[in-house]
């Protein structure tokens, strides 16, 4: 009788162990498979005309430095932009949606835009978040970014070419990283806005949530999509 109870208890423990192992497989591998597939599908469903990036006829976008057009903030959960990062591969293309809710944006669509922060091209800070591991891991290679690397944000009609300025590692409560001027803490007076920033936030170290990896950039130029493709996205040679 006692042997029977112990036997069943042992079997339960083995079962729980196997299930926990499967959870790890699901979290680290399967969410990534599903996430990458879903994010590619979202980009395809947006149906935006793909930029030409090779061939002799390709038009290189003129670099506009006057005030860029700024889109209105979309409703929460709406996909409104795309991100290209040549440093992360010429195929790198991920959708950006409004809001940083985990279930509806970060786990499913990919990159989230902090609500209330600047829109692309706006004076202030276009602040974004995405997973570094799991769920399609849009910001997986964030540590590979170097100064002057291009972060190209596209809305349906406009390219916004940002250049990386610096990166740092902060604690999760350091919300000044997404301030309109990064580094100005809540409550401190804001200087007059003169720069168009972009901020990427993701977790650090990988597979942990102890800290946040932050990358900053500033707008270099913008261009209408109809005028061609930014030179940063053209294939070498």
């Amino acid at each position, binding site marked *: 009788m006692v042997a029977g109870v112990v*036997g*069943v208890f042992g*079997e*339960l423990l083995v079962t729980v162990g196997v*299930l926990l192992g*499967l*959870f790890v497989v*699901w*979290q680290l591998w*399967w*969410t990534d498979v599903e996430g990458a597939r879903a994010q590619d599908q979202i980009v395809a469903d947006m149906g935006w005309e793909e930029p030409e990036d090779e061939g002799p006829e390709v038009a290189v976008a003129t670099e506009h430095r006057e005030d860029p057009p700024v889109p209105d903030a979309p409703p929460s959960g709406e996909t409104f932009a795309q991100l290209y990062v040549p440093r992360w591969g010429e195929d790198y293309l991920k959708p950006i949606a409004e809001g*940083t809710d*985990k*279930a509806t944006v*970060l*786990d499913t669509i990919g990159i*989230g835009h*902090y609500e209330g922060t600047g829109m692309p091209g706006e004076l202030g800070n276009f602040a974004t*978040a*995405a*997973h*570094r591991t*799991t*769920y399609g891991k849009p*910001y997986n290679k964030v540590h590979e970014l170097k100064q002057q690397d291009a972060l190209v944000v596209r809305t349906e009609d406009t390219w916004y070419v940002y250049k990386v300025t610096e990166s740092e590692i*902060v604690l*999760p*409560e*350091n*919300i000044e*990283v*997404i301030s309109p001027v990064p580094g100005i803490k809540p409550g401190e007076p804001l200087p007059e806005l003169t720069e168009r920033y972009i901020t990427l*936030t*993701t*977790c650090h170290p990988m*597979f*942990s*949530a102890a800290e*946040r990896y*932050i990358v900053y950039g500033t707008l270099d130029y913008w261009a209408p999509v109809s005028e061609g493709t930014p030179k940063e996205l053209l294939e070498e040679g």
Partner: protein
Amino acid sequence: MYAALWNFLPGPPWARALLCAGLGIILLAVCFEYVFPWLSDYMPFNDTTVGE
């Protein structure tokens, strides 16, 4: 527990093995589709945002 399951299932051993495999696959599917997504919301290592 598993011995009881084995005895409960009908048919020759190969049919029982097949049924066990089927049950295992169903369990796996339920876990991947429903249980694990629910559980992951309570895990601390998925946060990427700054703020409270």
